[in-house]
């Protein structure tokens, strides 16, 4: 079942000299429930802009984005924010855990924007999620007291705590060593599969990208499918971000 569909999406910005900079050109992408897609691309290839569009944070210049078959452009700002909160989970390269808050408080944060039992039972739900990530002993630890791998697991728990149907991972292993990155990706892949969530990974790491079932390359604003061997062949310095 199609969860997210991009049809002929372009994104341009007006420059100071009235010229247009075309960042994304004719992007077509369909992501289904339970899918795992990787996107690799150089710096300046348009990955951030694409992430904004996939995360319902921005509108395309032309083309259309459908979420659950519904055109996103028709959603009002608040509805879009709420849909993002309930259906999309973000994982960032630098973990982006909120400082001064414990692991548990970090995982509880998205539940502050939930309603009903998710909101009122947020402590219990967050605790269970951290235990599922193997961090049951680190509930009260501050981010700086956690290792890089533990911080990313907290970030994954935070992204998954509201049970999203789409997980957007932006360089999820970028700040981790190879071994930790591999274990974090294995965990992410596993929990995404268990929860039937679609996972889109944007990475420069060919090994990380290879874990996905479908692979894309973003080059100068053009998104094109590639097979896994091509992805592994891309594991060269020039595709790093």
């Amino acid at each position, binding site marked *: 079942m199609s969860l997210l569909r991009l049809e002929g999406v372009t994104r341009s910005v007006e420059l100071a000299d009235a010229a247009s900079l075309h960042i994304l050109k004719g992007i077509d992408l369909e992501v289904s429930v339970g899918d795992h897609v990787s996107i690799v691309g150089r710096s300046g290839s348009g990955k*951030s802009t694409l*992430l*904004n569009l996939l*995360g319902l*944070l921005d509108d395309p210049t032309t083309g259309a984005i459908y979420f659950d078959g519904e055109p996103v452009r028709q959603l009002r*700002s*608040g509805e879009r*924010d*709420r*849909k*993002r*909160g*309930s259906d999309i989970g*973000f994982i*960032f390269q630098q973990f*982006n855990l*909120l400082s*001064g*808050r414990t692991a548990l*408080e970090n995982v509880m*944060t*998205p539940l*502050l*924007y*939930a*309603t*009903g039992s998710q*909101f*009122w039972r947020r402590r219990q739900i967050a605790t269970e999620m951290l235990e599922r990530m193997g961090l049951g002993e680190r509930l009260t630890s501050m981010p700086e007291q956690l290792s890089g791998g533990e911080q990313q697991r907290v970030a994954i728990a*935070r992204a998954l705590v*509201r049970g999203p149907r789409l997980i957007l991972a932006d360089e999820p292993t970028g700040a981790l060593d190879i071994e930790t990155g591999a274990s974090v990706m294995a965990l992410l892949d596993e929990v995404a599969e268990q929860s039937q969530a679609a996972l889109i990974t944007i990475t420069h790491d060919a090994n990380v990208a290879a874990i996905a079932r479908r692979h894309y390359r973003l080059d100068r604003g053009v998104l094109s499918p590639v097979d896994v061997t091509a992805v592994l062949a891309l594991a060269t310095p020039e595709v790093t971000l």
Partner: protein
Amino acid sequence: MNRWASSIVGSVVEAWAELRIHKTRVLLSLIGVAVAVTAITVVVGVGAIAQQAITESNERNGGRSALLSINAYNEQTGETPQPDALQGAFETVLERYSIDYATRSLYAGGKAQFASGVVDLQVQAVDVDFGTIHRLAIDQGEWFTDADEHRLAPAVVINTTTWKLLGSPDLSTHPVIELLADGSVTAVVVGVLPPKPYEMASITMLYSAWERITPDDARAGNAPNYELWVPPAIADELTPLVRRDMQGELGEGFTAQVNRGDYAASQGDDPLLPLKLLVGGVAGLVLFLGALGLVNISLVTVRQRIREIGIRRSFGATAGRVFFAVMMESVVATLAAGVVGVTLAILIVQNPSVREMVGQGVQDLPAFPIEAALIGLAASAGVGALAGLLPALVAVRVKVIDAIRY
């Protein structure tokens, strides 16, 4: 409904967590607000005491608001009416309009025998209500009561000069004063008025007693002034009615004059307005400076929190929610500062030495005015909302992914 409840509770939880985490910054930023709220509450509280002191001082001089002063005379001859006729007309008016507080007031000369010799006195003859109407403060003893009307030896309240001429006696010994009127009259001193500079010896006695001890010829041509204490709201309406009724009772040829004699009538609608404006202006300036400091710190803080705001937006925080949360942080923080400020202000204003210093001689020292506390709290919440507005607008305009990668 559920969404609203969780949204509001969530915002408060967020705001509180933010304050808890950044308590040092919050404390520093709120010192200015707490000081400003303390200042504004103190000036309002102290201002209330000062206003009361001014009001009481004015009321002692001119009577409480609204005081109607009545006198009457014959248009042709200029003579005052017969005392009995005037008194009858006055009593009719009191009864007709159910006026509870009224007094006659008359000044006359007199003499008294002291150990040092005979001294000229100023004698004031009044009714019991005069003390209430003019808010008279008594230094020792007490003011007249209705029971004093029946004393065989008249009761007198004397001023401090007279008391000193008597040898500063203890009033519990029931000192007497020898008045030289139609023969010699012994009067009992029941009270002493507070000292005033450069005052001559004087005594105050009840009007009925003065009539009793004063020969008819000495009373002739010395008509008392009549005073009524009425609610200010009806004073203007009542004045022509009293004039009309007095003239009607006195009969053809007599004119009655009824005038407002209290301080409020002579000084416009609000004689304390300049003081209020001054106090309000100083308080507003103090608060404005506190708010400026808070806005400055809040703006810097929000810029430091751009990444955090981006992260929250990515988790589904709506623009409205982010706006509300940043505002709430500011309002919750300043309200907390407001509570501290108001508490400090109450401790300062209620301090006995402060009250003594500000409200010297005030009879009815007002309690800490509740409006001062409410103004302090409202000002702190208002400053919080205003100081939070700009940072909240900045927070809403954050571009999420850029903020996260900030």
